[in-house]
Structures are given as structure tokens and as C-alpha cells.
């Protein structure tokens, strides 16, 4: 099954939470920190792309594994 690796550069992350709004199936709050799934199914590619674009500090990277 095609999958996508997700990585958030936590040194850049400023906890704006825009990724959580754009892709709640991938990103969520864990207390007051950010938590996310990796890898994610290819069906979530659009939502992940939204999240990558909406991050004000461009902290999110994705890479197809298959």
C-alpha cells in the first residue's frame, strides 16, 4: 500500500496548529505539544499537502515511501 512519511521539524514548529486544522487525521494536540502520525496512507495525501502549505514556518516535510 502506498504510504507517505511525515516529518515535522520541531525546532521550527511554533505551535500555530494550522496543520491540525488542515489535516486533523494526521496532526493533533498531545497536551500542548504537537503529535502526528507517520507514515500515513496515500488517501491522506491531499490533506497532508494542505498541512504542508498552511504551516506558517514550513516545518512539515513529506516523502512518499512507495
Amino acid at each position: 500500500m502506498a504510504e507517505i512519511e511525515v516529518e515535522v521539524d520541531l525546532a521550527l514548529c511554533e505551535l500555530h496548529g494550522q496543520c491540525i486544522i488542515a489535516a486533523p487525521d494526521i496532526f493533533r494536540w498531545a497536551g500542548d505539544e504537537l503529535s502526528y502520525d507517520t507514515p500515513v496512507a496515500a488517501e491522506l495525501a491531499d490533506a497532508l499537502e494542505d498541512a504542508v502549505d498552511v504551516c506558517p514556518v514550513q516545518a512539515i516535510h513529506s516523502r512518499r515511501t512507495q
Partner: protein
Amino acid sequence: MTHRTVIVGASVAGVRVADGLRRRGYRGQVMVVGDEVHKPYQRPPLSKEFLAASAPHNNESTLPELAIRVRSTDSITWLLGERATGCDLGAGRVLLETASIEFDALAIATGVRPRRLQFRGGEARRYVLRTKDDAARLASALRPGTRLLVAGAGFIGCELAATALRLGCDVTVVDLNDRPMAGSCQPEVAAGVQAIHESHGVRFKLGRTIVGIESDARSGVAAVLLADGERLEADVVVEAIGSVPNVEWLDGNGLDLSDGVICDSMMRVGGRQNVVAAGDVARFPNALYCGSLQRIEHWTTAGETASRAALGLDLPDAGGTDQQAARALVPSFWSDQYDLKIKGVGWSGAADTWSVIEGDPERPADGVLAAAFEQGRIVAALSVNRPASEVLRYRTEIIDSAGLAAATPGPGS
């Protein structure tokens, strides 16, 4: 002939329109025209870490990377360093300084430029802060002991004050409102933030009008003149008094350009299916606020309106999804000043009540939250140093409360 979409404006909105077009499967030519020579870059750091790192005596910080990652970059024809001077929407033509380009579809994303004080005088000492070049020029003038006068106590003016203060400058901020960030910050919270600035040594001259600028013939040092007769000497004067939409190039097309470019709910312009606008220049009906026309200069809004605009264009052989269009467009912004993390959601322009609901506005560093209401409906929230997840919960409340409002018949709904 290959279908061509021309996007005028190469910042966040422009490039996100380009990405959105390719995401729809658009196979035509995408041409992005930008008046700056730089490849697309982020503006928020220009008043903060980029300015600080660019100051000549600051050897500690490395310059932050500003470049915007553009997914579709390889399939874009880039025309940078070219300014649009005119446009004929009917003929499908954009005029640049050196050429004219024909388009089948057009996206207007020319943003805004800084509003200027309308006086002559002291030009060599006057600065603005919108572009990377502005930031570099300003940074080179900020040294320990530099007397900086910031005209405008909005978010940019306040961020600039904080950055300059940390560079060792002597900072005075002038504004005609009686508190900083008057447009978008709950009054008590604004007063609390002002007090933090003042505790660091920033001076505020509020409720004051600038009536002129002079410069000493010999030294070139500038003096800003206030309506009450006060004269403030400064080595550097930054005009941070707001923005003017870049719409002059659209004159002659029968558009209402009185405050940006008016669009419909899919960002379409002038009733045309092949022209859209996005970003700071776009004035669109916000369904979240009963369809009131809003022109929002927040970073997140640029991307959101761009995604919507990319779907709004009528294009051959390109599908689309209604997902983006259906999503509520909630204005959201942030501002970092000293160790204060300010976050805002919603729009408080029509609020009748703005109340502090958590924390103490006199101690914003310890966390304070305020909410704005319009006839009992929550319309905006603003937090300083509160838990990260909290403002997003208020965002959801604002969306939910609009759902209730929309169900009630009323004018404009």
C-alpha cells in the same frame, strides 16, 4: 495555442494559486509575474528574526531561511523583477514595464505596499518595512544607541519596536490611536502589552498626530513634528502606518478598486469566470460574518484565498474539489513581541463587547485570553502566552456560532 494562466504577484498568494492550479490537473502554462527580483519568500520574519540577524553588529544570529517552497515551481514560467502597469481584462492582456502578456485566465495577487506619511522631508532617514530589501536597508541603520522613531503602533510597529530594542536602539512609537494594536487587540490586553514594551524602555506617544518631518541640513538627523508642537529627533524613522492595496494597474476595467479588488465567494472578479484575486489585495465576502466584504492581510488568509481562487477559475481539462471552498475562512494571525506570543482568530470589526475571559491583562506574559462578541455571538478571540490548543478551540466556537447566526433571518444573510 496552449491555455495560459497569468498570476500577477509572486508572494504567498500567487504561488499558492499556482500550486492549486496544478493540483486541479491544469496542464496549461502557468506564468507567475512578480515585481520583486527575489524568488518568493516569507514576510513575517522581516520584522523579527530576519531584521535582528541582518543588523551589522549582530554576529550571533544566522540569517533565517525565508524562501517559500513552491511545489509546482518546475512547471511555472517565472517573470521576476517585472511590475504590472496595466491590464485589459476584456482583451486578456497584462501590461508590464517592458512587455505585454496575453492571458486566458488571470489571478490578481499583487498585495499591498506600505502607506506613507504624506510629507516631504528627511527622506534619507525614512524607512518602510514590507520587502526583504526594506528589511536589509533598515537593519543596516539599526545600531546600539540608534534613535528609532516608529510611526504606527500596529502589530508591525510593535514587533519592530521589540526587535530594535533588543538591538540596543532607543525606541519611540507614535500612533494616533490611544493604545497600540488598536484595530485588533482587546483594549486592556493592548495596555498590558504596552506596559511590557515600556518596561523594556520603549516610549509611546499615543493619541498623537504626526504633522511633518524635517531634517537638519548639516547632520541629516530627522525630526518628527507632532500636532501638539512636540518635536522628536530620530536617526531612523520607520513608517509602519498601514498598507495600500496595489490595484492601480487594474484601472480602466470598470472594477471597484476603492479597497482592494472585490471578489465573489469563489474569489472571482468583475463577474468574470477567468479572473480571480487572492491574498492581501482581495476583498471577498466572508460567509462567517454574514457575507460582509473583508480584505484581510494575514499570512494564513493569503494561502486560503489562493486555494479558493485556484478553484474559482474556469479552466479547460481541470477538475476540482469543493473541499476547499466549503471550509470556513477564519482570519487568523500571530505576533511575537519579546517573549509574548500573541495569537488571534476571527474578526472583531463589528464586535460590541471585547472582554478578558482568562488571566490578567496586566500580566500578559503569564497568559491572558480575551473574546469579542457581537450581539452575544462570539466573533473573535485573542490570546497572549496561553496554551497552544486553546485559540483553536475558540476558532471552532466562532465557526459554530456563525452556523447559529446564519440560521436566523436577517439583513445580508
